[in-house]
């Protein structure tokens, strides 16, 4: 009997799947009018302040719009996880899926499957293949980020001198995209500036601090450190401060205002660049709701998202606007 049990279990499992084929989940989107819309928000990874802030904005919008928000994502870099979560959501019966895609091509299959089941799909933060979603909530293009970083750095250094980059890992796809654009802008506009080194910090603040300290020693003429992953910005600033070079070596980067406030106010870090992350979550939820209700249709050229006002749509990209530069003068107005 004991030996039979597992087979019975397997058989019943198979049976459940087999007979269930006919009585599959009710098609979403046709939910009775009284039921709340449920919108699923997929971050690239969890345990990351950036997406925690996105969620904060999304939560706010969900409360205002009276929709249900599901938030789930992978906790590591396993590329299969995002697909699994989307497939889970399909069977869970959500109305809209909004995804920040780690794998442009990889996730497309799962998203198309969702579309085939009548679930509306849009992407935010980073896009998938265009045919796998209706809209992309675009906070800033790789070009926008790269150019803004390079232009700000050039302005800080007076358009000449050496600078170095701290990145998360040498393999991170989105950061490599930004680096490409930084270098393109450099070549095109700032012949007197020179990128001397690019160091990885494994997404850790302390490692960024050590790498920056090494760079400061190795390149005594260094004029600027550009940190393009968020933990690296305070790390680089701390190294510059400890080396007694605050102000002499400029620090800028892509990061969250809260983590950098102290350095920005004491003039160690000159500029922190990021879009208003909370608005990104807020806008995504608004777009998702409008999409589900049929208020946002393909071909629209603008979209009104509550207090954010009228936003432009280019093709199928809903534009949040240009990256925002946080400086000493305005950083106190933000809390994320």
């Amino acid at each position, binding site marked *: 009997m004991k030996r039979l049990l597992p087979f019975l279990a397997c058989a019943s499992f198979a049976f459940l799947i087999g007979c269930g084929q006919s009585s599959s989940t009710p098609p979403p989107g046709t939910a009775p009018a009284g039921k709340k819309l449920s919108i699923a928000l997929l971050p690239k990874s969890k345990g990351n302040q950036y997406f925690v802030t996105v969620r904060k904005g999304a939560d706010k919008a969900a409360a205002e719009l009276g929709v249900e928000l599901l*938030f789930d994502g992978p906790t590591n870099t396993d590329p299969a996880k995002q697909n699994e979560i989307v497939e889970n959501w*399909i069977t869970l019966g959500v109305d809209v899926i909004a995804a920040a895609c780690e*794998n442009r091509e990889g996730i497309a*299959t799962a998203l198309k*499957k969702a579309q085939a089941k009548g679930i509306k799909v849009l992407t935010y933060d980073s896009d998938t293949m265009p045919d796998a979603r209706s809209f992309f909530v675009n906070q800033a293009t790789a070009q926008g980020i790269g150019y803004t970083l390079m232009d700000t750095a050039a302005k800080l250094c007076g358009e000449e001198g050496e600078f170095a980059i701290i990145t998360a890992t040498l393999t991170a796809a989105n950061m490599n995209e930004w680096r490409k654009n930084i270098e393109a802008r450099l070549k095109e506009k700032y012949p007197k500036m020179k990128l001397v080194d690019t160091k990885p910090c494994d997404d850790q603040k302390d490692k960024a601090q050590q790498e920056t300290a090494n760079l400061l020693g190795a390149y005594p003429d260094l004029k600027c450190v550009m940190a393009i992953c968020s933990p690296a910005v305070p790390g680089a600033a701390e190294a510059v401060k400890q080396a007694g070079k605050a102000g002499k070596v400029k620090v800028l980067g892509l990061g969250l205002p809260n983590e950098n406030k102290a350095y920005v106010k004491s003039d160690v870090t000159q500029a922190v660049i990021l879009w208003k992350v909370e608005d990104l979550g807020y806008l995504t939820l608004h777009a998702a709701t409008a999409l589900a209700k049929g208020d946002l249709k393909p071909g629209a050229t603008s979209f009104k998202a509550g207090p954010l006002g009228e936003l432009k749509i280019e093709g199928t990209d809903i534009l949040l606007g240009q990256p925002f530069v946080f400086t000493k003068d305005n950083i106190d107005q933000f809390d994320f």
Partner: protein
Amino acid sequence: MIFLVAELIIFSAFGRNFLTADNLSNIVRHSTEIGLLALVMMPVILTGGIDLSVGSLLGLCAVLFGTMVQDAGLPPLVAGGITLLIGGLAGGFNALLITRVRLPALIVTLGTFSLFRGLAEAITKGTATYSKFPESFLALGSATFMGLPVQAWIFIVIAMVVWLLVHRTTFGRSWRAIGFSPEGARYAGLPVERRIAFAHVMAGIVAALAAIILTARVTQARAEAGTGYELLAITAVVLGGTSIFGGTGSVHGTLLGVASIAVLTNGLSRIPSIMGVSRELSGVLTGALLIFALSSGVLMKFLSERRARRQTSRNPSTTSNA
């Protein structure tokens, strides 16, 4: 078993759309790769060894398969065959170091754990991904056959093969004997090295198979594929009652272990109140579950030994009475 039933009851009660056909087929699809790894991890653990490299090998095989199909333009069937061969060779490499160079399996596979992942990252330079696969191949990951997902059939076949090997052939018996006492097995005339090597080669081949199935399901091959799978596979095996020291265990127990883990992860993400933190929670629970399974195995053994001792000590007294 009890654990699995409890999970099913809890998640059906509190989870949303948990006991639907689509979701069950999701669970099956998502756990095939880990299930395959657990199935072949089981004989390795049965011999008293361990293989920490299977997850990394999965990543390496996925990447190799990707390059062969996309860059070399090989048809998936040929590329798949070569991938399986490479998996077998990699398993053989582990086996060689363990049986010939006589290093502990732990240390060898900890080394190849980094080596295989490192190779995968070197081939892709960390960034390249492979996603141009023919539709017919992708069916392996998403189509159904006679009501079951295609990969479930593959899984069932492998499960039956492993079950027969472990429970119905001399292989299984010699694996147990080796796990129980390698020296004793050697004195009994068993080809200890060859049997251990066989288990590792099988693990390599099946890890390669899992890589192909994963690639078909995700429609993309990346160097990070299979990260952390070795831990899940070990957890499933130990949870299924196989002793981490080798010697005892069953394949059907392992299957139950796989099902428990798969249901746990899926079910947690369906309970509305904890949905937001379900991934972290299932990570924590999986680790805790492994620790619990490991220690309960030892405690159970301890208790049964004590009971056996008490019985033997009681028996003489009864005979003396007579």
